[in-house]
């Protein structure tokens, strides 16, 4: 088990290196191939009407005139050991892990990510609890009475939930419950400062996001339960004289849970890399919003940073899922 985790962790690091290399290539190599000179590249990192000195400074800092592999090495070295950026008037010491420096905002990327991560985690975690509970319960009840009125209406709502985009449901919820009825706030407050206001602001984003996801989980649970409830071991459990509730939960749901765990891990990993649309719709200062801002500003270092962070979460969650798999299903051998 331990050796399996170590091996998987090493593989994860290699995977992350590949992701960085590809991302790095997209931002630094492709423009070069497309015929942009280092000067033009450097100009993109500065605001409007760049002065020649600024361009020279950026070029030197990013090593834009050096070969690509050296630039990449610089970037990786920065993550592990930190880096120094000369911004013209002052020199910035970017401590490890240095994910780059935004010359447009004159600020390091990593502290920005750290600042925004709690928002994204709050959003993802709250929504995950909601959609997991509601989706699985709905799916189980639907599967126990397939074709019933509950099943049909639940699956109808599920279809609507999957089909309606966040920028529709989110906006609608905001308009109704926040602007009209004024039940929920719109300003994000950290949990540590005011838990009730934190929950109050996040409630609508949680529900909107959960509606989207619980629809998928309800359908997934339903089909899984329909299958497992026909298994022979369910008949055995009943033959023992177990009550129907125990049969459903302990024997049926337990077996149907495996694919749900897999999908759940992937979804959480993706969300932690930034729920872009949700954060934009509800103006939550999370990773996703940071990414959108960076893209709008054509600010490459933050984009690179967010990409890496997102990749990290996806890889991490996948590792956790694989290890969980072995605990959920004893037939899976980790080797």
């Amino acid at each position: 088990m331990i050796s399996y985790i170590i091996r998987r962790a090493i593989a994860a690091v290699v995977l992350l290196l590949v992701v960085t290399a590809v991302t790095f290539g997209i931002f630094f190599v492709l423009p070069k191939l497309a015929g942009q000179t280092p000067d033009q590249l450097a100009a993109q990192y500065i605001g409007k009407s760049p002065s020649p000195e600024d361009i020279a400074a950026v070029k030197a800092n990013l090593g834009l005139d050096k070969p690509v592999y050296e630039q990449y090495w610089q970037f990786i070295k920065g993550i592990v050991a930190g880096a120094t950026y000369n911004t013209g008037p002052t020199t910035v010491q970017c401590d490890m892990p240095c994910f780059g420096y935004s010359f447009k905002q004159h600020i390091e990327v990593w502290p920005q990510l750290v600042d925004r991560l709690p928002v994204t985690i709050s959003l993802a975690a709250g929504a995950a609890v909601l959609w997991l509970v509601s989706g699985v319960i709905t799916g189980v009840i639907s599967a126990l009475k397939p074709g019933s009125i509950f099943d049909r209406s639940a699956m109808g709502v599920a279809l609507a939930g999957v089909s309606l985009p966040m920028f529709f449901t989110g906006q609608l919820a905001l308009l109704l419950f926040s602007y009209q009825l004024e039940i929920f706030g719109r300003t994000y407050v950290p949990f540590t400062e005011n838990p009730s206001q934190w929950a109050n602001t996040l409630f609508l984003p949680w529900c909107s996001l959960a509606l989207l996801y619980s629809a998928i989980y309800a359908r997934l649970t339903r089909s899984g339960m329909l299958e497992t409830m026909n298994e022979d071991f369910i008949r055995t459990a009943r033959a023992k004289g177990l009550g129907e509730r125990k049969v459903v939960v302990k024997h049926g749901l337990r077996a149907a849970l495996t694919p749900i765990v897999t999908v759940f891990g992937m979804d959480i990993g993706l969300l932690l890399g930034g729920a872009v649309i949700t954060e934009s719709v509800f103006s939550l200062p999370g990773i996703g919003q940071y990414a959108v801002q960076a893209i709008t500003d054509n600010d490459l270092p933050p984009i690179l940073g967010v990409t890496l962070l997102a990749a990290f979460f996806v890889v991490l969650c996948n590792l956790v899922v694989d290890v969980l798999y072995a605990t959920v299903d004893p037939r899976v051998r980790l080797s």
Partner: protein
Amino acid sequence: MTDQTKTGAAAVSEPVPASADHKAFLDVRDLRVHFPTDDGLVKSVDGLSFQLEKGQTLGIVGESGSGKSVTSLAILGLHRLGARGKNVQMSGEIWLDGKELVGADPDEVRRLRGREMAMIFQDPLSAMHPYYTVGNQIVEAYRVHHDVPKKTARKRAVELLDRVGIPEPNKRVDSYPHEFSGGMRQRAMIAMALVNNPELLIADEPTTALDVTVQAQILDLIRDLQKEFGSAVIIITHDLGVVAEIADDILVMYGGRCVERGPVDRIFYEPQHPYTWGLLGSMPRIDREQTDRLIPVKGSPPSLINVPSGCAFNPRCPYADVPKGNITRTERPELREVGSRHFTACHMAQEDRTRIWNEEIVPKL
């Protein structure tokens, strides 16, 4: 045990009305189990009656779809559970130790399940939950009916695993089903069924999924355990060879009905129904020349949706054309006593049957 001494070895007695007052330990009367489907009403079991006393073994034999498994599930009340069970139509009576089960409260039947009546299933790999240890599943079966701490139940599980012949039961109790061999799994399944000392044990094709060498071991085990526990046992199989040694009585099912039943010797040496002849002819025998071919029963089992009126076996019966007096084809044959505790449902006259058996069937067997 008193029941047994009262009625002696009479495991199969007369059809319904004669013994209306006295009830056998397991007394099934005119059981009908029908499943409404989009294509029509599936009459899986259509008027089945039999009796079984403690300490006795009844073999129920028939092809797939003859209703033998549905019968066993009906006794345990299992076919009514789950999404599909809601609209099952069931009538008749099932008496177990003086309690009627067909009309009983489902929760009452649930409390009997696993404690007074238990079941061994066909494929132990799929019949055991893959995510729980064997011990865990036996402990669960015990604790449903006994309010004891886990430790006590675990001791009981180890004890039973030992009893059914699993080596190192102390260790194996913590193994998962997939870590067992097929025979071991079936032994564990038997241990699970016996953990509450049930008085009725139903084994639904207990050896079908096993190697031939293991089959004999499992049958021996069931026989030994029956002697030890004194329970009534029903063995369901499509293989007459399985029940030849172990059963006291045999009930042959066809198309949801009983076509012949009687003591095992009568069924093997003086069978009266053409379908039973067919089953005997299709059974490999060690005393037969290897060059002889097995004789299959021609045709396929009847659809249970549109059961032919009259004798269900008629379309496949090689002796359908034997004159039967003034009986029409649409008349359904009822069970008639043809010997001591031996019943058959065939329109043919006794002389015709005896003649065909002696002159045509025996030489070919």
